[in-house]
């Protein structure tokens, strides 16, 4: 198991290195220049432009800037923000750091049990009114875009009923609507998968054997079927988490949550290279870590996988 975990862990590095190189290149070669943006009305003021360029180290060749940046990273130094004069990148993203992954994790935690329960229920009640009803809800959950859902929820639960605040990020109440809105499509997706997998498992020989042995339906479902449904679901959870993290960008904008997603957009528009770089790296890291976690969990749930990996 340790060897399996180590090998997976080592696999993270090339991913991060690739992310650093790609974002650095994308930032520098995309049209638009932070100094011209800073200059504003002073555009064309050569003296000021040269001074600013030197101050931010942008007058050096790109290769030198890259080496400088990477060696800074190695020391844990992410550089200074371009948009906020003199403020370190770490300070710009410090407060926001946990918000996006937290929203995504909370939504996933909410979506997994609901999704699996709905899916399994639909599979067990296959071709009944309950099944059709659940499928209808799932289709709606998957196809209504989250900004539309958000507008509807805000109108209903915040403006009309007054149960939750419209937007902001101070009390736990502020987190409820965004998490639910993120969780709905994720739960719907999981439920559809769970239903398909469950139907497949219920056809398997060992399930038939278990039933033939005279085991109660509850034991057949809980012990023999559900565990086998969990394996493929787990793999998908990693992907869903990635989707949720990206989804937070929209939700954070609508609910005015100061998360990484919102800062990412603002820094991209301001050509704040150091902040953009740091956020892209963080997103990559979150993605990689959750996939790593899924791999490890996968090995735990299905012993055959870690055995194969070690061989």
């Amino acid at each position, binding site marked *: 198991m340790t060897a399996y975990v180590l090998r997976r862990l080592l696999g993270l590095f090339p991913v991060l290195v690739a992310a650093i190189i790609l974002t650095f290149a994308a930032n520098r070669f995309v*049209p*638009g*220049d932070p100094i*011209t*943006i800073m*200059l*504003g*009305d*002073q*555009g*064309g*003021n050569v003296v000021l432009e040269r001074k600013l360029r030197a101050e931010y180290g942008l007058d050096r060749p790109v290769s030198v800037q890259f080496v400088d940046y990477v060696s800074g990273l190695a020391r844990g130094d992410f550089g200074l923000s371009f*948009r*906020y*004069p*003199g403020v370190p990148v770490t*300070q*710009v993203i410090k*407060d*926001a750091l*946990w*918000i996006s992954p*937290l929203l995504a*994790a*909370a939504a996933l*935690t909410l979506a997994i049990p609901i999704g699996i329960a709905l899916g399994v229920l639909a599979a067990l009640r296959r071709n009944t009114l309950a099944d059709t009803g659940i499928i209808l809800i799932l289709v709606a959950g998957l196809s209504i875009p989250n900004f539309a859902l958000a507008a509807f929820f*805000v109108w209903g639960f*915040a*403006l009309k009923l*007054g149960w939750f*605040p*419209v*937007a*902001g*990020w*101070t*009390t*736990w109440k*502020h*987190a409820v609507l965004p998490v639910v809105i993120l969780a709905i499509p994720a739960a719907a997706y999981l439920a559809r998968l769970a239903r398909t997998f469950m139907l497949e498992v219920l056809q398997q020989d060992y399930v038939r054997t278990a039933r033939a042995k005279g085991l109660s339906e509850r034991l057949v479902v809980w012990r023999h079927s559900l565990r086998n449904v969990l394996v493929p679901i787990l793999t998908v959870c990693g992907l869903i988490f990635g989707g949720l993290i990206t989804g937070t960008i929209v939700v954070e*904008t*609508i*609910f*005015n949550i*100061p*998360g990484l997603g*919102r*800062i990412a957009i*603002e820094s991209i528009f301001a050509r704040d290279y150091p902040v953009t770089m740091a956020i892209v790296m963080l997103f990559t890291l979150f993605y990689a870590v959750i996939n790593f976690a899924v791999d490890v*969990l996968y090995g*735990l749930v299905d012993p055959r996988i870690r055995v194969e990996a070690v061989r």
Partner: protein
Amino acid sequence: MISRKLARSLVLATTMALGMTAAAQARDLRININADPEMIDPITFSALIAGDVLRNVYENFTKVDENGKVLPALALKWTASADNLNWRIELRPNVKFHTGRPFGAKDVKASFEALLAPGSKAGLQLQYLQRIVGAKDVQDGKTKDLVGVKIVSPLVVEVAFTAPDVLFPIYPFMFFDTQVVADKGPNWFMQTSAGTGPFQFVSWQRGQNVQLKAFKDYYGGAPKIDGLRFVVVPSEETAVTMYEAGELDVLVPASTDLSRRIMRDAKLKAQAQMTPNAQITFLGMNQNLYAPFKDKRVREAFCISIDRDAMTRGLFGGLAQPLYGQITPGIAGYNPSVKKIAYDPERAKKLMADAGFPNGRGLPPLKIANLAPFRNEIAYYADQWKQVLGIQVDLDIQERATFLRSLNAGETPFFSWGWSAGYPDALYYLSQVWHSKSPFNRARYSNPGFDALIDRATITADDATRYRQYHAAEALLLDDWGTCGLFMRTAVTVVKPNVKGVVLSPMRILPYGKVTIN
């Protein structure tokens, strides 16, 4: 097992990260800002949102009311010497800094020295200090003593200039207690408040809000509210919903789209305040780059082919007013009796024919440049020129930085653009945009008569005389059709009915010191 542990730690983490701070205090005035302030210290201060926040914390010699009238603030009296090379400024007694120390002449000098210190990264205010005697030596690090500023007594300061600077008392300085730099280090502004304004800085949570609290010892009387909370709300849709749900007391729309939406909503409209923005807009016709513009008749024809009334009604849905001159109301020196520019297609056609371009025949190809957000405006002008003059003017939509660089280099033959007042005096518009020596004279307009009047105005300390010089200069510029005004956008602010004392001026919202909440 593992998943249960994971779930538990997730819940724990959620609780911690949300911080569970107390709900917003009921008596804070909550105002939206559409992005974080760019900075929060009075030295590097240079931008719009930072200004909206910091004007409540830091003050200047003078202040301006909503009609553009200059009133005393930290200074009570200011008099220029006969040669205009000296200002004697008498300061208001009994003014305290938020730090508890008294404000006086030494602080004026120290604030200027802090701005000029080498490596201070001073922003906007630096340009207003350049003419003080000895400023360059301080900037170059030769001395720390700004010799041009003399402390006559604890409450009287005399400022000497290398060249007359009659507007010195109205420049937007932000005086602060420089002692905090020694006490708290270079990052003092995140930890303490060092102004004299009605509100003290408390905290800035990036991406969330800037919190200010009432300054009980404010010389103008302690504010009647507990504080101000500037809530960072980038999405305007969200800002409107928050206002409707009572999570904001003041809604400041940043875009014309939202302003228009407010005007269509009867309830919001009833709570709205409106005033023309302190911003001129104009046609830039570069006579060096496009020869036909050398002919005054051509310039006039282009100007009078635009129907300003129809445009402000149709294109802006009433959220703009025609602008005929190059000074806006609410700015000192505004001339309310400036001549209207009538929409006159017949005269325009005749002028073009007289100039040798009947129906636009014989004109070299022409493009009008601007940025994408202003596409509709230039499309309207181009359509008018096509219909009235028979001239095909193409639209040249440019990227912002490229556009500004080319404007500043004087390389754009034809454009429409604007200029927002940095201080409430017409000189800001006239000298910066139309004086031939100004780097921001982007149409490269040159009129010796106009220059002479402005040069004289810059050394005339007496307001009434100076305003007459402005009017004469503006008339010269307009009679020559060197340019023509286009429109003034209307600023809109929506205020809850239980909030009183919020004043929208042409130069943004005045400090909130007199606000009450019922």
